[in-house]
């Protein structure tokens, strides 16, 4: 019963860690009537305490470094991190810039990451990453 609940109820907290706003718009596009992620129970929430998934967009800038780690630690377990866009994976167009603290998975390695490449990725790709996230959460609950 519990794993099935995760499959159909996934609350997402969205963090902009230095993005150019392109990926943010695509995340919003996934919630519009055209894609309607809410029909799978995916919902944007306003607080990391409510979230199952944290969606990071953009590379992590030096200023955002400690905030990003704090947000991940504030989220209750079990949690999954979805990195939306090429910037969060390898820096994208900001690769090797002076103001970057590095990719999120280097800053906080003890979490489960899913990656959505693209600049920006399509909304379908973002929804598929969330689907992968709930499959993983489901397996986690089955193992328990």
């Amino acid at each position, binding site marked *: 019963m*519990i794993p099935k609940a995760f499959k159909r*109820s996934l609350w997402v907290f969205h963090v902009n860690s230095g993005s150019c706003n392109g990926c943010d718009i695509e995340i919003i596009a996934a919630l519009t*009537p055209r894609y*309607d992620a*809410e*029909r799978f*129970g995916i919902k944007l929430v306003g607080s990391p305490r409510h979230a199952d998934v944290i969606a990071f967009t953009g590379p992590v800038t030096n200023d955002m470094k400690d905030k990003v780690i704090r947000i991940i630690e504030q989220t209750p377990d079990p949690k999954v991190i979805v990195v939306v866009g090429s910037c969060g994976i390898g820096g994208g167009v900001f690769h090797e810039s002076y103001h970057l603290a590095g990719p999120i998975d280097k800053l906080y390695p003890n979490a489960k990451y899913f990656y959505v490449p693209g600049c920006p990725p399509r909304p379908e790709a973002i929804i598929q990453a969330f689907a992968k996230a709930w499959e993983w959460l489901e397996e986690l609950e089955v193992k328990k």
Partner: protein
Amino acid sequence: MNGGFFFWLVVKAIVITFIAIFFGLLYKGIDRKIVAHMQGRVGPPIRQPFLDVIKLMSKENIVPKHAVRWLFNAAPLICLASSVMLLLYVPWGGIDAILEGHGDLILILYLFAIPSIAMVAGGFASSSPFAAVGAQREVVTMISYELPLAVIIIGIAWKLSGIGGDVFSMAFITAHPIWENVGLLGLIGIVMLLLSMIIVAPGELAKIPFDVAEAETEIAEGLTVEYSGRNLAMFYMADGVKIFAFSALIIALFFPYGIASLLSLNGVIASIADFLFFLLKVFIVMLFSVTLIRAGVARLRITQVVTGYWVTITLIALIGLVLLMWDSHVGRWL
């Protein structure tokens, strides 16, 4: 008042708790589905709130380091318990309330304030500035909608006092529908009272446009910002139960009619028919007082909430009250 009475009271209260949470979540799901359809979306399945609650129950329950621990954990419990307690006093269609005769309309009004106060206490206890702002806003919203609500209740009770009897008891109010005791002026007055009651509902239930205390985009969910897991699930269920209870209160005050006597049914079938008709009425009241307003408008500012309730809605309710009085004193010569 013997042992058997209390035993059955406890059994009924436990059964009511499950029924209340079930219907609360069911109506929450219907509400979300209708809003999605109005926005041109497919929307989540109707069982979505049940899945949300099950998921929240399986999540980690975090208490912030600087929070007042006992108050932080007690607030969701008090909120849910008092929401369920409301349904022990509000009549369920044809079926009398379980504690009928032990509490009246005034008690119900105070019980409606307790979930909000519990949320305020939880918000202040969670040591987050967002929650503190949300708690202050919740208190201000409460002060705003209590005045028109009191005017509505006074209007109905004053009109019914003409008949004589215990005007504040729910059994008396449901037995004497207010529409049958007034003339034309009074009818207009009751419609105005009903209108202001429908506008009070989203404020009481913290729904758009009056959900300033839980504004997720401005103050990060406000009151519930630090809550997670089991505690958040309790707030979530209390929200659904409160929608159900407030709709049941509007029905008891304004539409206490049953369907069984119309269809000349009797016995158990009559109770079942009345109960199903009651569920339909709850749906219709929820549709007009929560769902359509929620889908149609955006969130107000806190100052607009206060002026809206204190000036506009109170004025409408007061005019309704004055019309009801004229109906008694002037109406007989019209």
